[in-house]
């Protein structure tokens, strides 16, 4: 597999470090003898390229990584980071009724007006008709809302699995035991 374009990473880390006025170096990937067999580090979480823009309603499901909450009248939205939004009818807070899960790849934030949900789908702002939450429909898409996540784990120091664009869109970085990590950020 083609390794991550290391020159770009050097540049990015260099910029990062120049901005922080600290001295940084990045590990030289060419020296295979220094790649550990295994390390506690970070790895990219991918979204398959062919499904990155596919938004649709699905049956209610378990929360994977809840990071946000929005209410609109009796509707309750719970953001599942990077995956989608859980919709509830919260007329009775003692008994919220799960209405649907809307897949919105790359989601980090949302807001709503009656009948409409506005959210980020990776870097795009998408307008979604939720008059019927069980049949959500994308009605508009505007590019350029958010920049994409950096292709290295920002703020992290240590070994990480190199990001490989061929494997899909980058959702986020997660801690993991990585095997033969060829990328590393040093301070």
């Amino acid at each position, binding site marked *: 597999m083609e390794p991550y374009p290391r020159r770009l990473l050097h540049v990015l880390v260099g910029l990062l470090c120049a901005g922080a006025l*600290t001295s940084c170096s990045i590990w030289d990937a060419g020296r295979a003898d220094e790649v550990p067999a295994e390390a506690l580090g970070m790895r990219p979480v991918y979204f398959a390229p062919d499904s990155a823009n596919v938004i649709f309603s699905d049956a209610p*499901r378990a929360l994977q990584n809840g990071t946000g*909450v929005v209410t609109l009248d009796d509707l309750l939205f719970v953001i599942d980071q990077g995956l989608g939004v859980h919709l509830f009818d919260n007329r009775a807070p003692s008994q919220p009724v799960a209405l649907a899960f809307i897949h919105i790849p790359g989601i*980090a934030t949302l*807001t709503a007006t009656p009948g409409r949900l506005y959210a980020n789908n990776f870097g795009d702002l998408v307008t979604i008709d939720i008059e019927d939450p069980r049949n959500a429909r994308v009605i*508009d898409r505007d590019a350029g809302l958010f920049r994409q996540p950096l292709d290295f784990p920002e703020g992290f120091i240590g070994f990480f699995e190199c990001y490989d664009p061929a494997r899909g869109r980058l959702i986020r970085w997660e801690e993991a035991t990585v095997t033969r990590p060829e990328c590393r950020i040093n301070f």
Partner: protein
Amino acid sequence: MKYFNTLLLAGGLFALGACSDDTNGFGSTDLNPLPAAISGSYTRLLSVGGFLYAVDNTSIITYDISNKDNPVEVNRTDVGLAVETIFHLDGNLFVGSRQGMFTYTIADDGHPERRGTFDYARVTGMVEPCDPVVANSTTAYATLYTGDVADRCGRSQTLEMLVVMDIRNLDAPELITTLNVRSPRGLSLDGDLLFVCNDVNGFTLINVEDPTTPRVITTYTGLTAWDAIAKDGILIVVGTKELVQYDYSDPTRLIELSRLPYSRV
């Protein structure tokens, strides 16, 4: 339906008072009589009146949504570095970044106009924390949290702080006080009650009747709390794997109303 009744009533009152000037005010209630979304403090996207306000890492982006099916970008305003959250109150926007809190007023054309800044370096030194912010008309509250990070000298340090700021003058927010709070995350304010999420350590309920001396009422554990909305006596808490709601009519004794572990995987 109740909103339409209110709208009709309001319309009737304006019609009776022929001299009422109801065209200049920008408040969200003026332009948006429909129910408005309430967002947790970590949000990057807000709908206010006929506009959407989004923050990316460096700027506020304004979209006109007078046609709700076709947002149109109308403004992009530079804020600073590492912007993370946005909060709205009465036509003012509070932007949280790792550097500080930035205050804006929404102008008549919907564009945000810069008012003031509170630089977190005043209370944190050089460490750059994460930083959601909430506010009422006089006081803003931000949680600053870094986890365990190395500072520029390589020393490990953790910052876990609630910062209380006087925002009566939006052009020059001032420090009121700080309070140590364990692993603070999102927060929500309702009157004199401030709810601060503590991640795996639950959440803390703080009495802020006197902002100079915030008083911890109690801490609730047994849940993971990342962000919350407190309104009309109901607290909605979202954690990594769960959604928990409480009745806080009696702030000294919260009643758990529901807990969704989303058991159906």
